[in-house]
């Protein structure tokens, strides 16, 4: 993840060539404003950090493809579901343990598979997977997910 995050600016730059027309109107509008603000309030580091966050969010909103956003939303959902199950296990005990293992590992496994899908479908990683098209990646993802669900539903008994 971290790696892809670091790399994001450069593909974004590369992507601008491809996806320039729709993004261009929105990008320049917020971009100059923060720069001005930073120049104005240089001593306040808090504002500086706000700026970084706002920058990050804007950059994410503007430069991330729709499908990657969808993946991220789904992953966030899985994190919430997994956290709820874990908290329940800590508070209420792990009996029956196979149910906990099954429920929790279904969520974690789904998260891992989804992360793999994200890596394989990100434009920036295309050079790493020259033979894997996004369609092929999605098909792999569906098959693996079905196997995972099959195991988990059986294991929870």
């Amino acid at each position, binding site marked *: 993840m971290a790696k892809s995050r670091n790399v994001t600016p450069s593909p974004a730059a590369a992507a601008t060539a*491809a996806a320039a027309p729709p993004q261009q109107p929105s990008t320049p509008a917020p971009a100059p404003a923060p720069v001005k603000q930073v120049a104005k309030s240089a001593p306040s580091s808090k504002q500086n950090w706000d700026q970084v966050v706002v920058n990050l969010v804007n950059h994410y909103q503007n430069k991330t493809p729709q499908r990657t956003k969808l993946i991220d939303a*789904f992953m966030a959902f899985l994190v919430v*579901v997994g956290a709820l199950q874990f908290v329940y296990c800590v508070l209420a005990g792990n009996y029956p343990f196979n*149910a906990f293992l*099954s429920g929790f590992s*279904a969520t974690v496994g789904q998260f891992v598979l989804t992360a793999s899908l994200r890596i394989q479908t990100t434009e920036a990683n295309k050079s790493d997977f020259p033979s894997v098209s996004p369609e092929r990646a*999605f098909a792999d993802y569906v098959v693996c997910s079905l196997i995972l669900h099959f195991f988990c539903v059986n294991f929870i008994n």
Partner: protein
Amino acid sequence: MRSLVSFVLLLLVAVVSAISTTGNRLLVVLDDVAEKEGYSKFLGDLESRGLTLSIETPKSESLSLFHLGERAYDHVILFPTKAKGLGPSLTANILLQFLGANGNILLTLSSGSATPSALVSLLAELDIQLPADRTGLVVDHFNYDSASAPDTHDVLLLPPPGPLRSDIKDIFSAGAPADQLIAFPHGVGAALGAGELLSPILRAPRTAYSYNPKEQSEAVVDDLFAAGEQLSLVSTFQARNSARFTLVGAAELFQDKWFDAEVKKTGGKAVKTFNQEFAKRVSGWTFQEIGVLRVNWIEHHLNEVGASNESNPKIYRIKNDVTYTISLSEWSWTAWNAFSVPKNDALQLEFSMLSPFHRLPLRLNAKQSTAEQAAYTSSFKLPDQHGIFNFKVNYKRPFLTNIEEKNTVSVRHMAHDEWPRSFVISGAWPWIAGIGATVTGWLAFCALWMYSAPVGGKKESKKTQ
């Protein structure tokens, strides 16, 4: 006609075996056959109870306790003899073999004659000690019969003994008239070892002591063999095979003259002796006519709703609910009666593999009990441990036949499809919901993924074109 004959035969067999649960052949060993006149009431009583008496002397050549390796008699009474030895047919070893072969022995001693060495070594085997030089006399200067022994004080007068412990039935003196006394004339006291097979019926009073009348002058008795309640006057030994052995310190207790005698404590009034009834009960206990327990049947089965009600299955599963029932009868004189556990005692069931996992009280089950037998039941949940287990009833009490019953069953673990399903356990519902959320979330994600057109797709295709 034939059926009538067989019926009569059966009746005869029933009548003959009605007396003792182990047999009715009784050997009476007397120093001199003429001596039996002195015991005529006691022997007549035994005969009237159905025992067939054979009277022999130790010198008799035909005397043998075994014939072709089998017991020739079921019971033996040994009365005191003047001779020093009992001869080759009544050695300590043979008498012990007789006990080992489920024979019962009633042994009487008397201070008037030295105990034969064969009997001393027999008693030593059973952990019963006699005074050192095989002769002793028990005296009591407070509880003596002032009518017959005003000077020697060697006829002890004792109240009927009462139960040995609070959890044991009083079978030797129950129902005894309060004013009757047991006369214990010219007797030998014994000291019992700590073995659990030994139990005294009658202990000496606290003021009694045992001394050697030949060597110790009556005035100065400094080296006592034993005194007070250390002295057991009538003692029993019940072997592991439930063969019974009784040592009566005073043979004269069984004589006619003490059955009818009136005795009188100093300052008390003359009362009848309890000897006849006491002799009957002591001999009856020894010859397995009272205090005999029998296990009629044992049954155990699954006690679960919807499960098969098969009796005595070979295999159970861990945590099964199981019911165990044992039926017991007690023989008393002429009939089998339902056995009732004494008030402060408990009949217990052990469920054990090497060591007991459960030790549970067995309670009387009135539904399955009749006048002849009492059913005791316990219902419980098997432990969470698989393996080879025993249902074990180990009931060994003084004056009652030993009961040790073991029924072996296998206890298997849960089969894979016997565990409760997760959806049955409410604790698992959040995790089931977790899988549900994951799967439906995944389905929604897939649908959205496929319907969301790749934004750059057209452009890419344009580019490639």
